[in-house]
């Protein structure tokens, strides 16, 4: 939906240009600069539109059709009835609840741990390079590879973590399995959060900290009254990124539980409908609903919390 407004905005911008050209003719240099700008951006824009905008439009169309690959002769336009089917299905609401639960818990814990990690990476007295190198490993590691590590670690009889916790099998019950999924998410994404916060942390002026210290502020007070307020933009952007990223969780669940025992996220549900049920219509409907959720999350962050969209910094220049 927001994609289509973007496109209209683009058309508006083009009209504006011609209007402006009519009013005040651009210098030869400015016109060359503008042409070069468009030329340099064109290939990137074409690829991005071809791979995203067009398929989203196609997905909207598919979501309005009855389209099961197993029944190719039975393709029919059915209006909004796919949406009615998905929205009245307990599977969708269950998957949405699981996804929201995973997102909220893992993002909040990651924020706290990421902040601690950022402080260590920023302030530690020695071994800063070693700490940063170690922290980058969970960030860089292939999620699927790490997920297998967690899977075996929690398998009774094979895993050290399972053995540590009295040979428990957490992956076989719903909430404990979700706990393991959240743990895997936190381990993988805390470094990314930490690095984004580190960028914000390095913008907090050292003088201010020292002045507050002279005035008798404790470390704790300085953290809450100086560091956090000054880092607010960085924190909100990091939260926005992490929330949207966590909402589309797929890899960890796919390996750890395959979505069994009530651990399906919305992405897993959509994938199941496409590749196991081969139902393009329902699969697309779920895809569009996930897209709408993501737009709502982004909107709440940008309007509600006043997060500067990460692009605004670029736009100003």
């Amino acid at each position, binding site marked *: 939906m927001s994609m289509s407004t*973007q496109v209209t905005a683009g058309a508006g911008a083009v009209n504006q240009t011609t209007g402006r050209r009519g009013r005040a003719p651009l210098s030869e240099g400015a016109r060359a600069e503008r042409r*070069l700008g468009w030329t340099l*951006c064109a290939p990137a824009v074409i*690829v991005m539109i071809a791979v995203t905008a067009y398929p989203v439009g196609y997905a909207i169309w*598919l979501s309005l059709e009855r389209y099961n690959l197993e029944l190719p002769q039975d393709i029919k336009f059915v209006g909004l009835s796919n949406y009615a089917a998905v929205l009245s299905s307990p599977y969708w609401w269950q998957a949405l609840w699981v996804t929201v639960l995973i997102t909220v818990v893992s993002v909040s814990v990651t924020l706290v741990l990421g902040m601690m990690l950022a402080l260590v990476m920023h302030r530690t007295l020695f071994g800063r390079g070693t700490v940063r190198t170690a922290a980058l490993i969970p960030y860089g590691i292939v999620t699927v*590879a790490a997920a297998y590590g967690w899977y075996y670690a929690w398998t009774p009889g*094979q895993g050290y973590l399972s053995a540590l916790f009295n040979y428990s099998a957490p992956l076989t019950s719903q909430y404990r399995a979700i706990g393991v999924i959240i743990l895997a998410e936190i381990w993988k994404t805390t470094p990314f959060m930490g690095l984004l916060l580190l*960028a914000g942390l390095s913008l907090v002026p050292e003088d201010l900290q020292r002045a507050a210290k002279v005035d008798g502020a404790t470390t704790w007070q300085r953290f809450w009254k100086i560091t956090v307020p000054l880092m607010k933009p960085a924190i909100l952007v990091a939260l926005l990124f992490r929330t949207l990223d966590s909402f589309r969780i797929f890899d960890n669940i796919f390996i750890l539980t395959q979505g069994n025992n009530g651990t399906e996220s919305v992405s897993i549900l959509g994938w199941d409908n496409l590749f196991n049920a081969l139902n393009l219509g329902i699969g697309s409907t779920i895809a569009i609903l996930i897209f709408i959720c993501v737009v709502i999350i*982004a909107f709440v962050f940008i309007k509600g919390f006043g997060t500067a969209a990460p692009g605004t910094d670029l736009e100003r220049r």
Partner: protein
Amino acid sequence: MAAVTTTPRQKAGWGAANFVVIALALIPVLWMVSLSFKTPAAILDPSFIPAHWTWGNYTQILKTSQFVRPLVNSIGIGLISTFIAVVLASMAAYAVARLRFPGKALLVGMALLIAMFPLIALVTPLFSIERALGLFNTWPGLIIPYVAFGLPLGIYTLSAFFREIPWELEKAAKVDGATPFQAFVKVIAPLAAPGMVTTSILVFLACWNEFLMAISFTSTIAARTAPASLAYLSGSSQFTVPTGPIAAAAVVITIPIIIFVLFFQRRIVAGLTSGAVKG
């Protein structure tokens, strides 16, 4: 910073913090390494350190095309996607960082939107489109979407780097009669090389890591990438759990990342912290 005196207690405190970070980051990785060296009999022993060490799991996976071919696919698809994405992104990032033209805000907004896009929403229609175009289960079938998703990351990171470049040099080149394009190729591109290396690493890691599209747009080892092949190594045998080979395969696909991180830690941190968030 230099004026701050450090007591031994502070030193010990930060030392402990460092230790906790390093331990938490490495223990799950070491667990995988340990599993990969366990003999099939010892797999059912939950101890952290193998009682008997064996290379058997590695020789087994490196003999089967079920893993070697996907590994080759991963490297090829990753390198080609990274190359195309970084070339296209550096052109666009140069324009974003340097030129004045209408539609710039739109480009940045679009890149942002794609960076945050729920991938599954694209998998369904792209699956259908790729089947129609004959791109399903081919290298280009993965390279094209990987380029598209590498572009936002590339444009953000590179435009942050490009803003740090001393642009007076470009002006000087223009005064000397270079066209804007010549100024770009001859003066700026060499200065931009470090940023481009960093961006390439980040984009390559993203491609190397990608799983959802890799399992959705491939059906055989003709195009399946290494992370996707892992999932299939496990699915193939229900009765003999191939824990050791999967662990060995996971370690093999983790090695390039560890190498990148060891050699380019400073650059990766700079790239990640400069791109998206600047206050």
